[in-house]
């Protein structure tokens, strides 16, 4: 039988479970995000307002989690889709690498930006 | 042309993977015998799965007053006093064991509110004793047995067609089969053989049977010089979907369905005032056919209605979902809203390979056993069903006698040795295949089948008479003679040759159909499913006996008769 590339590790149950957990977190945070951005206050968005919020440590934590969960959720979903349509082991490995590397890069970049943001 | 030959050796060989075959295989395999099952289709495709309504046993979950005596009496009366009463007595007792055994194997039975197995009424049964699983009882039993066979590591030879039975010095020594998938003869040497090859509805134009039900086992046994029993008794199921003949379970009437003629009349009140639609099958089928012959079919045509509309959507969806699904798919009728057009359909063979109640095949009227040869299920004739089978007794018979025959075969095979091969049987098998592959005839095998099925439908159907039967006999004999000279197959390859398979099956149909007809000509009485308009009464004095028929190599047929075993119940008039 043809060998196909698959990630190492366990059954996939945890990955799947995190996908569901992140979905719940994302749903809640997205609601907060929309409320704060568009419905609370006078509704006008300015750089100053957003910057002011991002300076507070609480918001930093919320946004970093937002970034991690969003990326995980999106990339896991994308990989799931691609896995069904890419049958070749090499291309699977390649795409998986791109996704993993891209995800890692975005996580790093995003974390640095949020942590170091001073307004 | 040289055909490739492959040899195998197994302690026991079972031909057929329906309920009887799989149950027997389970008996052998769980006793650690090297067991192989030869089957024409994948095991879960066997036609036991087509049975819908239920499996009988007097466990009394719904009607506590039910008893072994009642089940026995119903079966004897249903058989029109042709069933062997010693075998029936054993059958009704063992039936109960079979049900609990199935339940313990995990069969999903429909349940009563108290958690016990549910039971529904069925034609000819005095009490509610049909255990069921919605309307797919045979299907769940077949799959459960297959699962058990997987667990016990039975070897299955899927898509192998049996060609001949090997007998060495009068003892069974193996079989020869054709490998459909790759081509080639396979010679299976064994200590004991069991035939569970099912019925032969395909001899008829309108039948509830699968395309695979071509009575291969019967033809094979006849060619080996052994007799068959009571083949003139063919059950016509009252309710098949109009035109296709596909089965509508008797459970539909058990749940309260009505039969209506073209005048909107519940005509069964004329024929079975007490039991109405739940009379035995021979009676209900004859009643429907009488209505049709007398012009009271729907719009004067050859069908009547099975009306379920008054049962309500909920009951139909819960108890008869498959029936509804098939009615929509096959006749474009939703039974919740409209009545289903139905007609009688060739359904079951009461006769078959004669066996005693241990499942051992016998070869004459003195009940002489053929050592090492067993048969069970529809292919066999024990005889439980006599001249007419009651609904739900067939699943039960296949299971119970599959087990009994399987156990006895196991015991036999433990002590027996392998015998030398039967060269004549190998030659016979080889000739069959080579003749078809090498012959340059001009008539496609289907043309023979078509004419046979039409003849059987026109002349050997629900109402029979001497003139029609004799005509049929000469037509079918002529067909077989012509077949041997002029048959043609389009496909001459080795790989999955369906054309070859069907041609071999047609030859089988032609072989035993002549015995059905000849048996029907001889039996000058009306009993159960065999109804002669020229002899409309049962003749207990001359005909309370089983037909045994042999076929000589030149095609001539020889008969003998063997007495019915009567223990408790003397024949009386049969009223419903």
């Amino acid at each position, binding site marked *: 039988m043809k060998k196909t590339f698959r990630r190492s590790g366990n059954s*996939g149950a945890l990955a799947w479970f995190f996908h569901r957990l992140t979905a719940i977190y994302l749903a809640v945070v997205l609601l907060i995000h929309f409320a704060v951005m568009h419905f609370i206050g006078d509704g006008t968005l300015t750089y100053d307002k957003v910057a002011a919020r991002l300076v507070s440590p609480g918001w930093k934590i919320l946004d970093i989690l937002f970034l991690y969960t969003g990326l995980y959720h999106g990339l896991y979903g994308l990989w799931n889709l691609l896995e069904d349509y890419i049958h070749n082991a090499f291309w699977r490995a390649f795409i998986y690498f791109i996704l993993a590397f891209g995800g890692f890069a975005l996580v790093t970049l995003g974390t640095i930006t949020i942590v170091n943001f001073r307004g | 042309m040289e055909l490739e030959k492959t040899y195998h050796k197994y302690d026991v060989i079972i031909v057929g993977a329906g309920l009887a075959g799989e149950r027997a295989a389970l008996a052998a395999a769980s006793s650690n015998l090297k067991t192989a099952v030869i089957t024409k289709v994948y095991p879960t495709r066997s036609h036991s799965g087509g049975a819908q309504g239920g499996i009988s046993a007097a466990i009394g979950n719904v009607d506590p007053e039910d008893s072994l005596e009642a089940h026995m009496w119903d079966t004897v009366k249903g058989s029109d006093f042709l069933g062997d009463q010693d075998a029936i007595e054993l059958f009704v007792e063992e039936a109960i064991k079979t049900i609990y055994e199935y339940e313990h194997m995990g069969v999903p039975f429909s349940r009563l509110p108290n958690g016990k197995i549910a039971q529904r009424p069925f034609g000819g049964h005095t009490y509610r004793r049909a255990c069921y699983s919605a309307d797919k009882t045979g*299907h769940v039993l077949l799959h459960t047995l297959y*699962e058990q066979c997987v667990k016990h590591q039975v070897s299955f030879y899927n898509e192998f067609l049996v060609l001949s039975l090997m007998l060495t010095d009068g003892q069974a020594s193996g079989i020869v089969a054709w490998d459909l998938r790759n081509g080639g003869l396979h010679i299976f040497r064994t200590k004991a053989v069991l035939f569970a090859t099912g019925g032969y509805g395909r001899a008829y134009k309108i039948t509830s049977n699968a395309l695979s039900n071509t009575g291969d086992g019967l033809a094979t046994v006849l060619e080996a010089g052994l007799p068959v029993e009571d083949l003139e008794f063919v059950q016509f199921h009252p309710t098949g979907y109009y035109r296709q003949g596909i089965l509508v379970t008797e459970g539909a009437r058990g749940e309260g369905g009505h039969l209506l003629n073209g005048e909107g009349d519940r005509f069964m009140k004329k024929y079975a005032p007490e039991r109405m639609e739940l009379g035995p099958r021979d009676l209900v089928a004859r009643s429907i056919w009488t209505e049709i012959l007398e012009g009271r079919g729907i719009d004067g045509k050859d069908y009547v209605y099975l009306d379920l509309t008054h049962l309500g959507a909920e009951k139909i969806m819960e108890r008869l979902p498959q029936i509804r699904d098939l009615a929509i798919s096959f006749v474009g009728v939703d039974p919740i809203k409209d009545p289903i057009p139905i007609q009688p359909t060739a359904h079951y063979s009461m006769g078959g390979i004669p066996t005693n109640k241990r499942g051992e095949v016998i070869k004459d009227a003195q009940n002489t056993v053929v050592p090492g040869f067993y048969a069970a299920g529809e292919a066999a004739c024990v005889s439980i069903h006599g001249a007419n089978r009651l609904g739900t007794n067939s699943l039960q018979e296949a299971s119970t006698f599959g087990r009994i025959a399987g156990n006895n075969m196991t015991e036999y095979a433990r002590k027996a040795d392998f015998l030398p091969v039967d060269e004549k049987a190998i030659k016979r098998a080889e000739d069959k295949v080579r003749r078809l592959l090498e012959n340059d005839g001009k008539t496609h095998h289907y043309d023979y089948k078509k004419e046979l099925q039409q003849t059987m439908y026109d002349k050997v159907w629900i109402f029979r008479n001497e003139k029609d039967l004799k005509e049929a006999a000469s037509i079918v004999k002529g067909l077989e003679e012509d077949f041997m000279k002029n048959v043609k197959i389009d496909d001459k390859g080795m790989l999955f040759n369906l054309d070859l398979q069907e041609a071999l099956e047609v030859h089988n149909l032609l072989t035993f159909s002549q015995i059905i007809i000849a048996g029907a000509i001889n039996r000058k009485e009306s009993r159960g499913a065999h109804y002669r308009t020229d002899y409309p009464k049962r003749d207990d004095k001359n005909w309370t006996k089983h037909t045994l028929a042999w076929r000589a190599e030149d095609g001539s047929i020889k008969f003998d008769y063997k007495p019915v075993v009567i223990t408790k119940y003397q024949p009386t008039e049969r009223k419903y």
Partner: protein
Amino acid sequence: MKKTLEIFRYNPEKDEKPYFKTYEVEVYEGMTLLDALNHIRWEQDGTLTYRRSCRSAICGSCAMKINGKTYLACKTQMMDIKSDHVKVEPLPGYEVIKDLVVDMDNFFDKLKRVKPYHITHTPPPEKERLQSPEDFHYINEAADCILCGACVSACPSAWADKEYLGPAALLKAYKFCADTRDEGADERLAIVNDRNGVWRCHYTANCMDACPKDIKITDFIARLRNMLVQDKL
């Protein structure tokens, strides 16, 4: 009314590669695709090869690809096919043996991997084990499966990974795990708790579309996952 059938043909004994052959059939009320195939076999071309048996949607022999969708030939009415042109191909995802006949061995082998039989440790009672009608109802639909293979054939995850157990085997596992009488759920759940087991299902839900018995297979796979998650929590 006439309809044309464009049928996939391939006999490795003599054909270098597969091709399509066109047949014309007179269609009548009530004619199924299986009837049409039989008509071609019996009246026009005896070499056309396919599997068939019960013709009443219970044996599961005749699943094939019909105008792009997998379904049973015997349960497809010719009149109901909107187009006058019917393209018939073997079940995708399996190796072709000849014409419309595919190799199902792998399908059955996978089934055998999930311990597809009733497992109990406590000795059975003298009579039946009790089960409520509700608990029966819970396994009844899954027991409808006829092992035709259409679901596996319609599943993109099964196309991608030959090792994936596939919807039919998972449904079988569910049937036993959900049975209140069965005591083998732990063993079976341990088998399906695998990258090529329940977690390989991506809810494409093609299997439900393809199922000729209308079994909600994807839902049942989801329930298997729930059993696993609840087990772990």
